[in-house]
């Protein structure tokens, strides 16, 4: 039997689950709450439940510190990066429960995966490429001086001296000679390589407002995070469209606002072209994501879209994801069209409706929950 605290722990986790979801929702809907520190470190508060107590308001209280500085100098922004290994607590300490940890992107992705119970993605077998890499993990007797391994060299020299009885412990001088020299050598390793490409398509016609774009942006952050944790290499391409489609960079993708009509087929066409040109489906795991408010110009165009999906995009991609962001102006018709044709459960297609920022998490789960 395990320690009873594991039950308390499970209980806490369960209570928090509802709460964690909320907390997580909060991060997700406010992408800015996740603060990058350095290259890929992030700060995320740990889940905790605050039992309400009569306590002092924080701000008015101020505090005391120790160290150099003169009146007016800030005391914050100096959080000790390593924390302080304290010398054991006696009994109870009224600590700050909002412990912050630095997380790397991988860890953040793992937490996301844990919380949403996302399955790991199984890359399609045929798409796993074998690749040969060289890593310096071996030791050899020949090589360039720049790769000489000093420790191993001296070890070898020491061995030789001891075995030839020329080593004097009183005067421990070790002199390597030519044949003692050891060099770092490369080992050839076969690694499975799987590469993925995410192609984001977004409707930027007049009906997509800033709020809708913010939702797409946040969602794509988390999708990228997850896919990056699953694939070794990942490429991301962006397409915006109204009545015509063009490929843009990330910055433009999120900031462009066009007006005018919507021809979804234009984006799917471009998507198909990109795949044909750069991404051989046999080598790449392809994830096209399309976000729109569901308005399309005409039923004819929708037909064209479905055609493109069926004949070109579905066969090439792991899964095609369509996210419909609710907007005041959008009719949401495209979602209905897709459901009418493919049903709500389909191997090749994942559909998700995103009502508002709070819906992002569920939608991520929709998209990534299949493990494809």
């Amino acid at each position, binding site marked *: 039997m395990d320690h009873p*605290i594991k039950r308390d722990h499970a209980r806490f986790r369960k209570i928090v689950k509802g709460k964690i979801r909320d907390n997580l929702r909060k991060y997700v809907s406010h992408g800015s709450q996740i603060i990058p520190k350095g290259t890929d470190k992030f700060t995320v508060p740990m889940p905790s439940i605050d039992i309400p107590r009569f306590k002092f308001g924080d701000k008015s209280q101020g505090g005391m510190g120790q160290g150099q500085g003169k009146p007016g100098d800030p005391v914050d922004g100096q959080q000790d990066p390593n924390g302080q290994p304290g010398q054991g607590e006696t009994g109870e300490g*009224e600590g700050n429960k909002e412990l912050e940890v630095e997380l790397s992107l991988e860890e953040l992705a793992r937490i996301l995966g844990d919380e949403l119970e996302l399955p790991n993605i199984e890359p399609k077998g045929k798409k796993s490429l074998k690749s040969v890499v060289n890593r310096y993990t071996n030791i050899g007797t020949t090589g360039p001086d720049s790769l000489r391994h000093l420790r191993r060299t001296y070890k070898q020299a020491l061995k030789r001296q001891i075995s030839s009885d020329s080593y004097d412990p009183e005067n421990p001088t070790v002199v390597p000679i030519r044949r003692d020299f050891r060099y770092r050598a490369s080992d050839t390793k076969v690694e499975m390589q799987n590469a993925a490409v995410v192609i984001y398509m977004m409707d930027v016609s007049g009906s997509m407002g800033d709020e809708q774009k913010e939702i797409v942006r946040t969602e794509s952050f988390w999708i990228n995070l997850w896919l990056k944790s699953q694939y070794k290499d990942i490429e991301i391409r962006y397409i915006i469209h109204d009545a015509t489609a063009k490929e843009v960079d990330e910055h433009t993708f999120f900031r462009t606002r066009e007006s005018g009509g919507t021809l979804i087929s234009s984006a799917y066409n471009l998507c198909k072209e990109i795949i044909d040109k750069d991404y051989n489906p046999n080598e790449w795991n392809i994830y096209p994501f399309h976000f729109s408010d569901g308005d399309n110009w005409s039923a004819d165009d929708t037909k064209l879209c479905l055609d493109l999906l069926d004949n070109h995009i579905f066969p090439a991609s792991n899964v095609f994801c369509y996210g419909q962001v609710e907007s005041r102006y959008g009719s949401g018709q495209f979602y209905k069209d897709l459901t009418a044709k493919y049903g709500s459960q389909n191997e090749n297609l994942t559909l998700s409706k995103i009502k508002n920022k709070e819906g992002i998490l569920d939608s991520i789960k929709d998209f990534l929950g299949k493990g494809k």
Partner: protein
Amino acid sequence: MIRTKPISGELLALKNQIEKYAIDYGLDFFPQVFEVCDYDTINILAAQGGFPTRYPHWKFGMDYDQLSKGYAYGLQKIYEMVINTNPCYAYLLQANNWVDQKIVMAHVYAHNDFFKNNAWFSHTNRNMMDVMANHGTKIRRYMDRYGADAVESFIDKVLSLENLLDINELFETSALKRSRKELVDQEKVESEDDGYLNDDRSAALKSFMRTKARATKKDEPKEEVDEAVSAERRHVSTKDVLGYLIQNAPIEGWQADIIGILREEAYYFLPQRMTKIMNEGWASYWHSTIMTQRALDASEIIDFADKHAGVMHMSKQNINPYKVGIELMRDIEYRWNRGMFGKDYNECPSMKDKIEWDTKLGKGREKIFEVRKSHNDISFIDEFLTPDFCERQQLFTYKYNARSGRFEIDTKDFNAIKQKLLSQLTNFGQPIIEVEDGNYMNRKELLLNHVHYGIDLDVNFANETLRNLFAIWRRPVNLKTKYEDKEVIFHFDGKEFKPQG
């Protein structure tokens, strides 16, 4: 499942060695038991306040969660846990290296000595290990009978009030209570009997006589008496809110028992909250003294210095109790060795003379032993903090600057620092809340009073706390406080919060 095991072999030899040093230095402690365990176990113990068994509650799971994550991310590591029991149990982390174990052992002996000798600990239950286990059993039984959710959510509510303690209760032993009650009863009897019953009749008879005596007084104006009694009952003015609720709230037996259990545990931990600086200062003083003078091997100096410096680390945001404690202990020792106190010293006009002051008094060690016996953090700071010390230790206060949105250093002025420190330590850092009236507005409402000395309460937390209090009191609850310089009474009637006044 046994997760800790007694030390043996080299560690046991080390224990005997350190124990001998501790005795040589005059430390006076309970028998000391060391056990070793792995990091997961020490996280469990720490989450449970040092005890291997507690009542079931998610908060221990939460603390465990945070400690485990903290350990996993390399944020913190617990080297040792020591608990105030007799014999005194301490747990060492198995993975500590040799020098760590030495430091920790020396540190533990001083904690042990402090637990045994400091006055504020004198009435703590030294069999707490058993008591906690019994509490666990009791609450588990209640959970079986009344449902885990019902019991847990009641515990949640009580925990909400767990910090409303009266430090004077620490000296309120049951014997003292009984004798005081007897005294009061006796006075009553005597006054009621007009003093002619001062013979050696049995108490039972006396009480019978008293009812009789009261009966004969019936013709006296009755209203006056009643009013006096009710006024006395109404204005209770106790800070022991949990104790008051046990007596007066309309709760069931098991609920009263749970409040009693949590109250007892809270009071058990209270002295530790009141002596954090002294206790850690004392333990650090001794680990440092024992290590540097006796226990340390020359090869271990660097490791020791590294570890010790880590523990003594200063922060701009907080006072490190280890640092302030050890420095103040050393300062007292230094001053009492050289007689640097009293009227002559204080009034000496020459700075130079003061610095060189040395009456060869040599009472430093004696003095700190005395200090550890009778002081708590407040009196410790109040009596021994000096301007020189503040300057040497680079202490300062900081406050929030609304304009820059940052916390900024406010002042290095001695009086300000001392005041700030004392106010942080007052009532072990918690707001002073007392029950003022159990029949407020003559409607059986509860009125709490926040004794405001300059810092407002967090309103959201206060409201939520009132909600929990309401669940126990079952009648509207009120909190009198000051908010943004205005007198206000927060009122909660079970549905909504209303600030009044």
